């Protein structure tokens, strides 16, 4: 793992506090979507298909901060939409850092150089750009349905690193991905100097245009095993090694849908970041009135059957690390040896 020690400590102590308090359900990462508007229309994305008046809407900074306070998670991820199109993104990040939240700004990086030049952000241990890259140039440009985006993202990454920012990448892998090309991509990212990488299989959004290339469970295990079974020492991942083992089929986890709750212009999304089955007015209401037993693999819900996405299973992996000696041992072993 490539997380800074202070961040690991903040998350670990938070989880231990929740366990000591006897809380059965607690959030780990708030997925804060201040807007749905985006400057791309990726084939695998089901987040941005809305009428114009909804795409024009965005949360105020005050609404965002109220959600952050209400939720209490130590980490705030800002996806969207494209968060660099959010007019108050600079002040939102500044306020979150002041509250000592670890912030991941998930961006396609098309606007990154421009926003950096405008001085919107200041480097901080609490703040990281998480740049969306679904592979090398050919694969990424195909995934985002526009040529040239990979090069723009790489330019943005270089500039952010040059200015002293933390930079990570997040990659969604679909059926047909080449393990060799993905491994080359990892090498390329390490050469660029990013702090760490996050990977996940895609989710079959019912509203996404491309329904044919989402990974089913066994194929996902096969793909991630081929990619990760002989990892290079230089590869650094910004996520739990147990989650990577889960992707390889070496851990049997159940989803933790409340682990990464989502807040956006509609409210608190039920039940998770991926499914939209309604909205709660408050986080408390979300936790207490969502029928959690209807979600996850064991529920038999067809929408959850093949899902292995990190927003549901990374919290399970973290909980497993701090919930059992075996989980703790496996995490330490993977971290020390660099093997999954």
């Amino acid at each position, binding site marked *: 793992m490539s997380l800074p020690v202070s961040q690991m400590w903040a998350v670990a102590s938070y989880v231990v506090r929740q366990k000591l308090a006897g809380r059965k359900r607690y959030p780990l990462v708030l997925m804060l979507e201040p807007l749905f508007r985006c400057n791309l229309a990726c084939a695998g994305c089901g987040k941005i298909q809305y*009428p114009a*008046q909804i795409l024009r809407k965005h949360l105020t900074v005050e609404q965002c901060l109220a959600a952050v306070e209400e939720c209490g998670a130590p980490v705030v991820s800002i996806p969207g939409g494209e968060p660099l199109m959010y007019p108050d993104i600079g002040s939102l990040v500044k306020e979150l850092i002041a509250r000592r939240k670890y912030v991941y700004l998930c961006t396609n990086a098309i606007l990154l150089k421009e926003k950096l030049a405008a001085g919107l952000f200041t480097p901080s241990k609490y703040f990281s750009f998480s740049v969306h890259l679904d592979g090398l140039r050919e694969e990424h440009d195909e995934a985002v349905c526009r040529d040239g985006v990979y090069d723009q993202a790489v330019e943005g990454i270089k500039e952010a690193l040059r200015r002293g920012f933390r930079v990570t990448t997040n990659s969604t892998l679909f059926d047909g991905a080449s393990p060799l090309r993905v491994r080359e991509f990892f090498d390329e990212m390490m050469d660029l100097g990013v702090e760490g990488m996050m990977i996940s299989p895609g989710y079959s959004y019912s509203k996404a245009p491309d329904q044919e290339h989402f990974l089913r469970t066994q194929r996902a295990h096969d793909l991630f095993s081929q990619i990760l079974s002989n990892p290079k020492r230089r590869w650094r991942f910004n996520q739990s090694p147990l989650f990577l083992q889960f992707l390889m089929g070496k851990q049997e986890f159940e989803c933790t849908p409340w682990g990464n709750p989502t807040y956006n212009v509609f409210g608190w999304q039920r039940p998770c970041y991926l499914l939209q089955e*309604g909205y709660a007015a408050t986080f408390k209401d979300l936790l207490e009135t969502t029928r959690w037993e209807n979600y996850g693999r064991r529920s038999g819900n067809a929408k959850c059957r093949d899902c292995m996405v990190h927003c549901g299973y990374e919290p399970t992996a973290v909980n497993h690390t701090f919930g059992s000696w075996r989980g703790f041992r496996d995490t330490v072993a993977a971290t020390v040896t660099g093997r999954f």
Partner: protein
Amino acid sequence: MTDGATLEGWVPEIGPGLSLADVVDKAFDYRGNVTVVLTDGSEIEGYLFNRDADAPVPFVRVFDLSGGGPHTLSYREIRTIRFTGRDTAAGNSYAAWLRAKEAAKVADRAEKGSGSAPPRGA
């Protein structure tokens, strides 16, 4: 989402074979504006983003065309819902992009193969 799977333009008739709750669920899942027709004859056009059929008073919530709201309407106030706005999730942009990409490759190959294009600076 493929072409042809959309409810765009649907004007449901609430009756024995189709309940209001079913129509509300379909409207909630629809990624376009709808027109909510109320029992008093008035209408609200907008995006229906939430519904709760299990609430003590079942309701829907709508952002209107100007983005105003949300307007909360109880099921009892609703006569029907028409699917009047464009379905933004319909279509097949990925296939369209692949077709365009393939066409560009074919054109590129044809250009290189013909040898008709003069070299730069010539």
